């Protein structure tokens, strides 16, 4: 099932073809994880009324993504690495168990998703990050992203120092050596903007042969009034860089990425799908209606992350439009869900005495 979905071009399946294939895989994963992960089985019993065959993708149980911050959920006996999400400083990281099998699935998925954009040969790779990001004791989401993209790059050049300062010389040297043929730039959206775009003047670098792939969300840039459209236009005007792909993904489902496609929307590949849910009842919302995103994926086998409720809001804006051979659902992300500040008798901010 997974192979079949993986071998086809990433957005080639119509929703009606995709759903039955995904559903078979998800039902199989539900059995797989309830058999191998006792914690997961207890959740399915207590919160979902027990395992049963699911007739629609939206019936498949999900876990809230925050649960991976509370506990390590494992469905594998094989020795594994623990991925940790970077999150925001001071937050508890997610801990995701990845064994060799799941790692292989993730990297095959990554290749299937990006090959159509990046081609068959390995490209010179400029990472808008520090090399420390991939050598940290526990891998962060940023590190995992860079490591993943290195599969497409020949030899990586890191554009930032350990303190995240732009190494202008390294960037110039890289562009001088590689700028005449296609090359890859990858980084977190905010770093790409502040450490690449803002550090060079108009026309200072010729990035017309670059493919820029970036991710990580718009929250910080929105504060500076930088939208996706502004971002794209700014890179075009300054560096003549036009092949830009934003993508949406999260550490709890590494390898399942929604890449920017026609109309600036984000598209799940064949082996991944998205459901928008209404807070409160948590029923599936109508197309076009904004809600909380649930993402299902056939990748995770070493941990029960095949169906997770994210903390991101978004809406499905197109289904099977077929522009540029992009079928299936397409979404836009509206931001994070609202947090609550609870009142209480205890003064949380203590209490400086006098």
């Amino acid at each position, binding site marked *: 099932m997974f192979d079949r979905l993986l071998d086809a071009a990433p957005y080639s399946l119509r929703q009606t073809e995709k759903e039955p294939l995904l559903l078979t895989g998800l039902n199989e994963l539900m059995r797989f994880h309830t058999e191998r992960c006792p914690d997961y089985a*207890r*959740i399915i019993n207590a919160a979902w009324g027990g395992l049963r065959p699911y007739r629609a993708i939206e019936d498949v149980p999900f876990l809230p993504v*925050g649960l991976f911050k509370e506990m390590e959920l494992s469905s594998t006996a094989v020795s594994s690495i623990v991925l940790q999400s970077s999150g925001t400083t001071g937050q508890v990281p997610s801990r995701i168990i990845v064994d060799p099998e799941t790692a292989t699935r993730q990297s095959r998925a990554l290749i299937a998703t990006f090959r159509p954009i990046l081609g068959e040969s390995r490209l010179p790779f400029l990472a808008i990050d520090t090399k420390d990001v991939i050598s940290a004791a526990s891998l962060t989401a940023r590190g995992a992203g860079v490591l993943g993209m290195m599969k497409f790059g020949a030899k990586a050049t890191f554009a930032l120092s350990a303190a995240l300062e732009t190494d202008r010389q390294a960037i110039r040297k890289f562009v001088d050596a590689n700028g005449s043929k296609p090359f890859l730039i990858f980084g977190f959206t905010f770093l790409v903007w502040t450490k690449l775009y803002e550090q060079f003047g108009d026309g200072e670098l010729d990035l017309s042969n670059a493919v820029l792939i970036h991710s990580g969300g718009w929250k910080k840039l929105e504060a500076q009034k930088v939208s996706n459209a502004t971002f794209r236009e700014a890179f075009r005007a300054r560096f003549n860089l036009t092949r830009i792909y934003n993508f949406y993904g999260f550490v709890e489902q590494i390898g399942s990425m929604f890449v920017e496609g026609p109309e600036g929307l984000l598209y799940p590949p064949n082996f991944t799908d998205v459901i928008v849910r209404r807070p409160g009842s948590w029923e599936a919302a109508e197309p076009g209606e904004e809600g909380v995103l649930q993402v299902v994926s056939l990748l995770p086998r070493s941990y029960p992350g095949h169906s997770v409720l994210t*903390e991101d809001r978004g809406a499905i804006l197109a289904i099977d439009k077929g522009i540029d051979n992009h079928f299936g659902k397409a979404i836009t992300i509206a931001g994070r869900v609202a947090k609550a500040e609870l009142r209480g*008798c*205890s003064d949380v901010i203590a209490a400086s005495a*006098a």
Partner: protein
Amino acid sequence: MSALTTVFEADGGERQIDGVTLLERLEACRSLLVAPFATERIDLIAAVSEAILKRKAPVSSFAKHFGFWIRHAALLRLQQDFGRRHPAQTLARPRGLVFHLPPKNVETVFLYSWVLSFLAGNANVVRLPREISADMRWICELILAALGNAADRSQWLIHYPSDSDLGRTISAAADARVVWGGDAKIKAFETIPLRNGGKSIWFGDRFSLCVLDGETVAALSETERGELAHRLFNDIFIFDQMACSSPHVLYVVGDADRHLAGIKTLLQALGAAAADKGEASATGHQIAKMVQAFASAAGGLSSEVTWRNAMLTSAIALGEDRSEQRVGGGFLNVVFVPSLAAVSGLLREHDQTVTHFGFPADAIRDVAASNTALGVSRWTAVGSALDFDAVWDGYDLLFELTRLVRVT
């Protein structure tokens, strides 16, 4: 004494004064004490009550409750009760200047602690939080205006920056201090002396719970169940379930086989009542509650969790153990226990209020009497968890804020 103090005034305005001036004023008001329950003070508070209760515009439930609590008849009852509690051949007299430090978030509590201290005849200085709700401001203005009319200069509502040393300065001038806001706030203030080693009343972090009789709940009619759900709603959802007396756990006396169905129907009614009355929790908090419920299921602590409700998430415990989970914002653990006596064995030192439903008064009195360990200062009917009482957290506040004079 560098920082300025903001003084809230009778005309609704604010004035800044320096530390030296503040101290002079506070010193002066120590000579303006009156006897407990002086007629002019009762009348002043009763007038505030009338103004609150006759307001035509909608007022929040806390304001209504406060207005009702301080109506003239209720004040007279407080006075009578207080008189009856006196030892023979004693007179009660005010303690002096009382410094009140209300919690930042449950700001309404200061109204009660101030009213009681005012009725006790004391001079009072209250540090208000920087931000207070519109209704709260309105009540403060009513009080200040009434004090202005009565030319009473012994009561001060103030604010000062928390990083200044004014808390220390005012403490040194005060004869008693009422500190709300939890363990951290106590820690911050317990080393700061009062005038002549005066007395502090501390309100630390507390946990509260509810006990239901499974059999009684199972036998409720739909109307009765709705009524109970409505009372539970008040206990749980006002102040986001984060007041010290808001219950976090429902202990059900009975067994899951016979009583779970009735409890689940009750929880449904509660969820529906909450959805009816309240605004939905922030989506992020709904998800946070879902995470806690799922984690509890994964850990083998819960047999069943219910999370498809915008307001209420609940988890039915597998065992009979004490639950310390304090998620707030509409999260309940349900634990079945074999008897009321078993609940007594689960109580801890930091417990405050046990709300109860379905038990004879004698049974509650017996279990309260049997508990000689520290912890639990209040057993009260479901629906009144947040009703402030002059006896609170183990203190008889009127007694604490007066001194006794033996006359023989």
